[in-house]
């Protein structure tokens, strides 16, 4: 068996006195889509934000345990947080393009790293926009404001912006919850296309969405990882009563 891309060891997290994650052990497989489902406040977004250390930004956060990305503990005191975040990209619930041009949005990551020259940057921007299925729609107006795009386009721009860093992992935090059904469908298809290149983790409220696109599914409840396995199994023969109750709509 190939080593897992991301692996947690007894990951516990507190916001102040409030324990949000309770000893989570999970293995995320390379180049597959893993969906994280569960009711609001179950800790699925918080767990996702552990994988690129976004929880560091919230004051009074305490973390115990390990998060291994490619067998490197990203919570090691000497870990390079900004470098980790270029390897593990993230797309948020609401599209959040910068108030800059489309081009500058996509180029942001490589610009701040300063490793690419001008023409390499242009190539990277074009490739990322193509990979996010946005190129044809924006190629003639790369220098217009990103706000001139529709919501669905803005979200694909955010995906392109994350892809421009050539990440190994893409974290998607309810990426379609602010979008219309058509834009949602497009982003789901895009995820299926992208999994040949990156490992995708997606947090979603939409059980049907998790069923449509994910290979593995993790069900979380009250900070616990209740069930984790192949989506086909979790959805058809859940091992835990709580998973079954959630999937059948008893609560959620």
């Amino acid at each position, binding site marked *: 068996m190939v080593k897992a891309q991301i692996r947690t060891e007894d990951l516990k997290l507190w916001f102040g006195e409030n324990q949000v994650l309770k000893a989570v052990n999970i293995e995320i497989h390379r180049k597959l889509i893993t969906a994280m489902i569960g009711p609001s406040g179950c800790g699925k977004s918080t767990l996702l934000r552990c994988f*690129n250390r976004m929880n560091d930004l919230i004051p009074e956060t305490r973390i115990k345990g390990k998060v291994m990305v490619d067998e490197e503990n990203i919570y090691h005191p000497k870990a390079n947080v900004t470098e980790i975040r*270029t390897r593990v990209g993230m797309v948020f619930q609401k599209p959040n393009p910068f*108030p800059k041009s489309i081009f500058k949005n996509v180029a942001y990551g490589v610009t701040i790293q300063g490793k690419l020259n001008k023409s390499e940057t242009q190539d990277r921007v074009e490739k990322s926009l193509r990979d996010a299925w946005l190129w044809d729609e924006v190629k003639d107006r790369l220098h217009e404001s990103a706000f001139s795009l529709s919501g669905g386009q803005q979200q694909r721009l955010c995906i392109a912006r994350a892809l421009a860093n050539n990440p190994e992992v893409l974290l998607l935090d309810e990426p379609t919850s602010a979008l219309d059904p058509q834009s949602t469908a497009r982003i789901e298809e895009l995820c299926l296309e992208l999994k040949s290149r990156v490992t995708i983790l997606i947090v979603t409220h939409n059980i049907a969405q998790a069923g449509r696109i994910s290979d593995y599914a993790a069900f979380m409840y009250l900070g616990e990882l209740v069930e984790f396995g192949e989506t086909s199994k979790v959805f058809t023969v859940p091992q835990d009563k709580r998973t079954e109750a959630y999937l059948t709509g008893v609560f959620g």
Partner: protein
Amino acid sequence: MNSYKEKLFKVVTYTASMFTIVLLFGIIVSIFREGIPLFRVVSLKDFLGGLAWYPTHENPQFGIRTLLAGSVYVTLGALMVAIPLGLGSAIFVSEIARPRLRELAKPVIELLAGIPSVVYGLFGMAFLAPLIREWFNLDTGLNIFTSSIILGIMIVPIIASMSEDAISNVPKALREASYALGGTKWETIAKVVVPSAKSGIIGSVLLGFGRAIGETMVVLMVAGGSAQMPKSLFQSVRPMTSTIAAEMGETVVGDLHYRSLFAIAIVLFGITFLSNLITELVFLKRR
């Protein structure tokens, strides 16, 4: 009974607002009425472009170029002091300071705005000017340099407080986006937060400009007061505002000198009106 009260309330507030507007127009009309007749005697070109300001009874000359230059130099100098200080403290307070320090620092900065300008002038005259004179070996410490510093400190709170509002209004989602792409704190502030707050920051600078160019007491006390074209930062100048304040007492109602001071007031009004207008437009565009 109730509807009577409602009506009274409406009438009172309506009268108050009308009164304000009428007052404002009254002031504008009167400065124009007193100032405009000057231009029957002195051409606009000689007035704005003339180098000599000799408001004497015989052979007077009313060129305000030196006064205009005095105002502009002192104001630009003040902005050079106030923009880095104001923007720096705005960034510190909203992005870097811990919550407790922020709660302390913001009111302290805003408190600076409550100090009367004459107190700033007094400080400049009594402490800063002698210091500047000694350090740079000058004849007088009352010059562009000193007044720029004092005036700059005076408008720091305006720039700091308005910029801070603009910066802390930048959505958290944009900061998160920058961090998630591997941005450091500094890169996030410099490349995302400050550019996103650009219009608010520009607005604060324009407001500071309007405040500085109209400020009278500080420049009257610290700028030295000689109507000359300055050749260095360490020369005395006589800005438009202090000219009006210093000379109005010497004039005879209706004579040319009297009218020329009103004409200067028109120029000042025009400049501040324009800068306020631009500020409004900048903010309007943001909404």
